[in-house]
């Protein structure tokens, strides 16, 4: 599919139009979503997670916006995004020596997810008793994986000049990232309000950031603006397009789920 990239920046008028649309959508979503910062975070989690109470952590008895697996996934993704920002515009995928670790993360996520799912059916055969710390751990691995492929993809598509070498290639860098993510996971698992509250908000914000980044890449392709930006300022219209689309997805899922269930709470299991 031949694509000719148009390197002209998006005009100010169109940018203003996109910003107004984004602002309107954001305003509507803020108005209709539950009150408070955690309420807004709940509304984000509601769009991507089942939010089953028994499978979630709690801040003083209040369920956090996402289940343990999703909380882990987005905390892992957050750690990996922030960690990779150190290397700015490097855009190569992880080296092959990391593949077994990455494959293990995906496999663990799948196996634990399936085992956990089978517990919906009390008589169904399962491998082991699912636990929230396992959900958290396997989620963290998957979140790291997603960011390790998303960050280079974003850089390769958005920036006009990027370094075509792996974002990081040393074992100690990967190990350090895993340790940071595990540290965040341990803080969440502690369920200490002072630690869990910001992590709950961060995990929901990471959903928005990841979705916005994914859709920004998609909009770059649609508008033929691949590799057309030299700075964050240039990329602003595309990023706003991505953010608006992310908000549309979250809003649409929130709406449909709320219409079907009549509640902002998660699905219930015994």
């Amino acid at each position, binding site marked *: 599919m031949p694509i000719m990239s148009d390197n002209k920046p998006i005009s100010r008028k169109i940018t203003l139009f996109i910003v107004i649309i984004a602002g309107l959508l954001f305003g509507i979503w803020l108005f209709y979503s539950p009150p408070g910062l955690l*309420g807004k975070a709940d509304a984000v989690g509601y769009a991507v997670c089942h939010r089953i109470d028994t499978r979630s952590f709690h801040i003083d008895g209040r369920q956090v916006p996402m289940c343990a697996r999703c909380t882990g996934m987005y905390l892992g993704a957050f750690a990996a995004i922030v960690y990779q920002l150190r290397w700015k515009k490097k855009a190569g995928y992880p080296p092959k020596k990391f593949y077994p670790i990455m494959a293990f993360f*995906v496999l663990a996520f799948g196996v634990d997810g399936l085992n956990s799912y089978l517990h919906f059916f009390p008589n169904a055969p399962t491998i082991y008793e699912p636990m929230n710390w396992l959900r958290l751990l396997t989620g963290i691995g998957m979140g790291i994986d997603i960011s390790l492929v*998303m960050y280079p993809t974003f850089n390769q598509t958005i920036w006009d000049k990027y370094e075509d070498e792996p974002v990081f290639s040393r074992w100690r860098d990967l190990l350090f990232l895993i340790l940071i993510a595990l540290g965040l996971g341990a803080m969440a698992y502690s369920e200490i309000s002072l630690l869990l509250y910001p992590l709950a908000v961060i995990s929901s914000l990471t959903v928005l950031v990841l979705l916005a980044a994914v859709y920004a890449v998609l909009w770059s392709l649609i508008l033929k603006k691949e590799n057309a930006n030299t700075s964050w300022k240039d990329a602003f219209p595309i990023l706003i397009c991505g953010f608006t689309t992310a908000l549309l*997805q979250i809003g649409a899922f929130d709406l449909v789920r709320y219409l079907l269930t009549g*509640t902002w709470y998660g699905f219930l299991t015994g």
Partner: protein
Amino acid sequence: MGQYYYQQPPQQQSYYPPAPTRTSTWAIISMIGGILGYLGLFGIGGLVGIICGHVARSEIKKSAGTITGNGMAVAGLILGYLNVIGTIVAVILAIVLPLLGVAICGGAGALGGIIDSGY
């Protein structure tokens, strides 16, 4: 019978610049789909990842090195297949297990048993 030897004309060295390379758009879309499969678009995102991943790999193969992005396409395919297989398994289990007499937690079903109390 005499043999004729033709002298080969001296080969001219070509100075054509190498063809510019670009990343396959299909590969990028495959990767996006694969990731979206885990960010709310369960099943659908994975399906996009699979379809676009295969189109990308075929395009890259035919391009004789002018189109890159094989790694991206493979990542999209892996994420996509896992997502779609996971979704299919979940749906099949949700349908088949109750038919086999296996109870579902929450009485009304894993997805149907919801608290009806508002926020």
